């Protein structure tokens, strides 16, 4: 669905950070800010909720650990018990390396998959780019026009050093 946006372009990360803090103080909802690199503190200033990724990693890691133990215990003591080096069929210490590796394997790949899904990133996606410089050197603050007072916004961002303020309607996937 198309939305109308007010876009403020900054060329300095410190200015966009100051503007974000001010906008939050004044209760102006920010739609998003597009930056070429992670600006420290900007996510906090925007009030973004803490990422749920660590919990995904924990759950997937536990899954990996259990899969590894189940696989090794089942194959060694149920499906086909073979005595190797005089060890008992179920020798847990010998299973630790693979258990560790599968914990990491499941944890890492599931977290990456969750990251891609949370941000709706996939091959062939054509994102809406407001300005090609948003992945190079400019910091673009986007406000949803229906949520804010256009005049207040443009005054605030100009006070903080925005080099350009414009309006554009776009569909953000």
């Amino acid at each position, binding site marked *: 669905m198309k939305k109308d946006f007010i876009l403020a372009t900054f060329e300095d990360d410190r200015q966009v950070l100051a503007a974000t803090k001010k906008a939050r103080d004044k209760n102006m909802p920010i739609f998003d800010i597009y930056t070429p690199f992670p600006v420290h503190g900007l996510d906090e200033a925007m009030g973004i909720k803490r990422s749920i990724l660590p919990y995904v990693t924990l759950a997937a890691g536990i899954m990996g650990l259990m899969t590894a133990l189940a696989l090794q215990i089942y194959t060694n003591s149920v*499906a086909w018990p073979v005595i190797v080096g005089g060890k008992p069929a179920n020798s847990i210490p010998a299973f630790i390396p693979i258990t560790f590796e599968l914990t990491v394997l499941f*944890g890492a790949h599931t977290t990456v998959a969750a990251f891609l899904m949370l941000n709706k990133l996939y091959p062939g996606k054509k994102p809406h780019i407001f300005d090609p410089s948003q992945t190079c050197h400019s910091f673009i603050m986007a406000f949803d026009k229906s949520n804010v007072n256009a005049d207040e916004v443009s005054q605030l961002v100009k006070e903080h050093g925005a080099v350009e303020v414009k309006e554009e309607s776009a569909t953000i996937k």
Partner: protein
Amino acid sequence: MAEHVSKLRQPLVPEDRTYKQMSEDVLDTLERKPTKAWLIGFSVSALFLTIGMLVIVYQVSTGIGVWGLNKTIGWSWDITNFVFWVGIGHAGTLISAILLIFRQRWRTAINRAAEAMTIFAVACAGLFPLIHMGRPWLAYFVFPYPNTLGSLWVNFKSPLLWDVFAISTYLTVSLVFWYMGLLPDLASVRDRTKSKLRKAIYGAFALGWDGSTRTWHHFEVLSLILAGLATPLVLSVHTIVSFDFATSVIPGWHTTIFPPYFVAGAIFSGFGMVLTLLIITRKVMNWENYITVGHVEAMCKVIILTGTMVGLAYGTEFFIAWYSGNPYERYAFINRAFGPYWWAYWTMISCNVISPQFFWFKKLRRNMTFVFIITIFVNIGMWFERFVIITTSLHRDFLPSSWAMYSPTWVEIWTFIGTFGLFFTLFFLFIRFLPGIAIAEVKSVKRYGQKNEEPVNVIA
């Protein structure tokens, strides 16, 4: 979050470069025609890769009897080369994961190239066990899968199988870690290029990255998680490689010191190779402002540390061999130093223990030519370390009647040279077609150590 950065620190990026210029410095090379140096380097590497491939086809179709192995020495060049390449693969993850956790911000300029090297080195390493199987098309036998061979399972109590899991996990996790880090820079290429083809290709690989702060927030958490997972992973990989030897009963292999000793050696050899390549790359690509003398110096310090740890391990294992009172163990070590392979042992000692000690001097650490020469010695020394451990332990063990000598055949030599061809071909393709420096990350450390750290004046 407050940053506690000393004002005394040296800036990591030259103060006069704007964000735009930083992108240009790194990405312009992708859009220009390849230079002559690149074309020559790439062609030579591709030539060696082709020869290597032909040699692999020959030995697989003839059988690995064309190697110089015999009944006594069942592992030699193949496993030496395997451990050598896996070891080199350790520096990339150390730089991108362990240094991230330690907040060593200088790593941003070199982590992309170092991690690419990790992936290429692990790919080279994987070839050797694969060829050693003799019938590489049955390589899937190493994975546990339900089957009709009498419900036969792989041996989960064998370190060789642990290796299968460790190396595959390491390769795939390093690959996604590296690829996720590439997303913002691929998007940069997509948005600045004028060529339609390039836009389509880089756009497809950028997965629709738009630089949203919400995405960046998840991205930073993801990097930290992957770094946290990769740190114990990288330590586990060489630990498990060392188990291949340490869990056996061969004198010279059966020692508890192997895991830390192998990990230190891996980081040592990896940094050697990273430096060898980066000293050339920074010059050829004109990246001396980003990969600075300071970076080289910091890596030299890691080389002294790990080189000295490796030296300590050599001394310790020799002492323990004597102190254990075990005549076989004692003989294995005396034979290493003074037996028929004495020259390999002393090459190892002089390259790995003596040569890095020059880096105690600041002047030498900052002399690029000198550092380059020493890193070549480190590469050679670490190859010999694996040769010494593997071959000299096997060639004379318990029964003198089964003692033997080993020398490689031309097939083994060319296979090894072929993997260098593979490694360098991939590296040349990498610096030509992908952003060789993580620009987004370097931009984020632009203010590090610079004078204008206080916030700019806001008119309000």
